[in-house]
């Protein structure tokens, strides 16, 4: 039994179920529809501050459902330039609109080279089918 999840083609993904939208040197980050469904209702989101440095593959924040705490992993290294403050009061947006209002942070990336380790939609789809 595999539910059908939306996996927008124009985004890049991590194996930890974050999505990354590349806009020149700024990367918007959120979690995938599959990730929010696995978590259940998101009741709390903790995000870094603007100006904070993040490192590819390292936690940059957490998302909590009623039952569990999950780390959020940075898809790319760089500096946080924007934070979706609205999520702090409306964490449910992560469930309702994971690729839209559920976005979390925007990172100004240090090096384009790191983009190579992100995976495209087709590959991400294969990944979640295995789980």
């Amino acid at each position, binding site marked *: 039994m595999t539910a059908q999840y939306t996996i927008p083609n124009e985004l890049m993904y991590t194996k930890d179920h974050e999505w990354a939208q590349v806009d020149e040197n700024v990367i918007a980050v959120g979690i995938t529809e599959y990730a929010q469904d696995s978590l*259940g*209702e998101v*009741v*709390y989101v*903790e995000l870094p501050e603007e100006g904070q440095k993040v490192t590819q593959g390292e936690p940059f924040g*957490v998302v*909590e*459902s*009623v*039952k569990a*705490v999950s780390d959020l992993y940075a898809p790319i290294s760089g500096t946080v330039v924007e934070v979706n403050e609205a999520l*702090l009061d409306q964490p449910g947006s992560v469930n309702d609109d994971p690729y839209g209002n559920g976005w979390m942070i925007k990172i100004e990336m240090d090096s384009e080279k790191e983009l190579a380790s992100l995976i495209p939609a087709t590959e991400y789809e294969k990944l979640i089918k295995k789980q």
Partner: protein
Amino acid sequence: MENLKKTPLCEEHIKLNARMVDFAGWYMPVQYTGVIDEHQNVRNNVGLFDVSHMGEIFFKGPKALETLQWLTSNDVSVLENGQAQYSLLMNPQGAMVDDIIIYCLEKNKNYLVCVNASNADKDFSWMKANNKGAEIINESNNWAQIAIQGPKAEALLKDVLGEKATTPKYFQFTQVDQLIVARTGYTGEDGFEVFLPKDQAVKFWQDLLAKGQKYQASAIGLGARDTLRTEMKYSLYGHEIDDTTNAFEAGLGWVVKMSKPDFIGRAALEASKKKGLKQKLIGFKMIDKGIPRAGYDLFSFDNVQIGRVTSGTMSPTLREPIGIGYLNLQNAEIGQEFFVQIRGRNCKAVVVKTPFVNVKK
């Protein structure tokens, strides 16, 4: 998941699209539609829980009472036929092997002990090792158990079983055919826990769901079972209590009867009381943002560790974080403030009165 034990209702959960998980070696539904929805439906209407993973151990024969008195902390001799009692299975250190409910089927000679799924095998071995001559039978594999909880539980059960099933008062039970219908639960709501032979479980479950439509009955997973009990500050074995926790410090002194005949752990409990208790199980709310979780450390404002969190969640009823934990006695008064360390950050919290949620019955 294939080597996990399954309850007779497993297929029913899968039909309802439940998310299934490994819980104490059992393949169990953690949620159906969502923890918050399910939680609220129990508070507002009625919820159905498959708790068939719980263990059922019978004590029979002329030494049944004497054995239970020796094994448990509460006074089993006060139980009359049809009465139930919350109690503790004790170890010699005055800590808990398990927390249990004892049902008196026939005074002096026949008792049902309901134990936690995760402890069932350990409990049974412990009981046999400390037997005072009772016939102790582990019938866990023959029984299913379904909890019906919420303000509409009585109306629903009346529809399914008829008037006589719903007469028991709180912590009493009736026997209807082969069913044991007890007015007990783990949610704080009015409701019932029904023990029934395994092969009758599917039909009973389906009846409850069908007749439950007009009461907005829905199936409830282990996720909401946990948030419901947390709002009531009910202990969960492995969290608030375990084989190292002191019954008095856990706030369970009300089920420890020091005046009854001697029991395992009594001497240790008496000594601990004489020496003075060190900590206390309390409920708290957050002043700063953050959700407390089991295992987080508690600190005083001058940075001394003064306790730890045993359970924590976002309360679906209150829509704010709540926590249960042990605090050193001098820090445990209602209104006292302290820090919960959440991911290295000190977040302010305050001891509050419990239960967190007041349920009207």
